[in-house]
């Protein structure tokens, strides 16, 4: 069974609005390494639209820093599925599916392959509610961000989710990457 991986940048107070965070080389490098084990990215519409035109351009034009360019190449190269009932067209190696997230992920997990990375706050929260996430990477940024989109907004977890800590890595910038698995 393939593992489903959830990677998220958050502030100390659980705010996941990416505009609160300053991009850094060491974090890009951490992500690029993570994505070596991923051969499929599943996104919601908003997350796809936010990430991919932007990062494909960076990859094509090599317009970022060294770390950003390598990250851009890594994620642009990976096949993508966008779960959406309203999106009409996508680019490159992406394709649209119009099924429920739970069904999509359960089917994909049965197929052979490397890990599946899921993106988008709403999609990830729904999958967490269904217990379909196997691995979590939280990159905690050294900021209390205040108002803004929260990690689990609008979602009802069936109960507490106990995780197993695999590794905690501190970066020069003060960010800390916490890697957990869900063994339940």
């Amino acid at each position: 069974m393939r593992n489903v991986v959830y990677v998220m940048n958050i502030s100390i107070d659980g705010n996941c609005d990416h505009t609160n965070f300053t991009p850094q080389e060491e974090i890009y490098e951490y992500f690029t390494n993570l994505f070596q084990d991923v051969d499929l990215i599943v996104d919601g519409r908003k997350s796809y639209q936010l990430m991919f035109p932007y990062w494909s351009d960076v990859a094509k034009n090599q317009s970022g820093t060294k770390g950003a360019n390598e990250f851009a190449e890594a994620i642009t190269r990976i096949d993508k599925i966008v779960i959406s009932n309203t999106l009409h067209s996508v680019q490159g190696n992406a394709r649209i599916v119009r099924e429920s997230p739970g069904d999509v992920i359960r089917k994909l997990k049965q197929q052979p392959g490397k890990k599946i990375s899921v993106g988008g706050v709403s999609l990830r929260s729904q999958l967490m509610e269904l217990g379909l996430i196997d691995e979590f990477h939280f990159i905690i940024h050294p900021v209390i961000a205040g108002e803004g989109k929260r990690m689990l907004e609008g979602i009802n977890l069936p109960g507490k989710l106990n995780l197993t800590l695999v590794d905690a890595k501190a970066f020069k910038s003060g960010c800390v990457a916490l890697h957990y698995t869900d063994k339940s």
Partner: protein
Amino acid sequence: MHISLDGFVAGPNGEMDWIKVDEEIFDHVGKRIGEGDTALYGRVTYQMMENYWPAAGNEPDASKHDIEHSKWYNKVHKVVLSKIMKDADLTNTTIISDNLPDRINEIKQQAGKEILLFGSPTATHSLIQQNLIDGYWLFVNPIILGRGIPLFVDIKDKIKLKLLTTRQFTCGVTELNYTVDKQ
């Protein structure tokens, strides 16, 4: 402060049964606490502490942590944020009922070691709002609660932090030790 990954310090009714603490954590925490000379509490946490710690070291089945922390608790100067308590009968305890910034700054100006704030989410919210907290010593538990009492509430402006140290504990808790970046 012991927190869940999603930033809660207790369940919705104050439940703390999910907090992992063991000898390894007690020993580590004890070293820093032992050096502090002032403990700060909100009223509810203070009452919980008073119900347990003064005599905890004397119980027949007292653990090493019970004995050590009880001794420290009885010695440390306590400051309690409360609008309703009176300090007439309390030894070694000061009550702050109003004028929080001035009273806290008075204590900060005095010569002495760290002032450690324990638990006390409601008091913490007030202190954060008045910019009176200089550092966060967090123990992140490997759990997502989904709901509960958050550590941070009504934050108006972003607060930048500096990471001092981190440490992984065998039970899966991660210590994150920050100061507030005052630049």
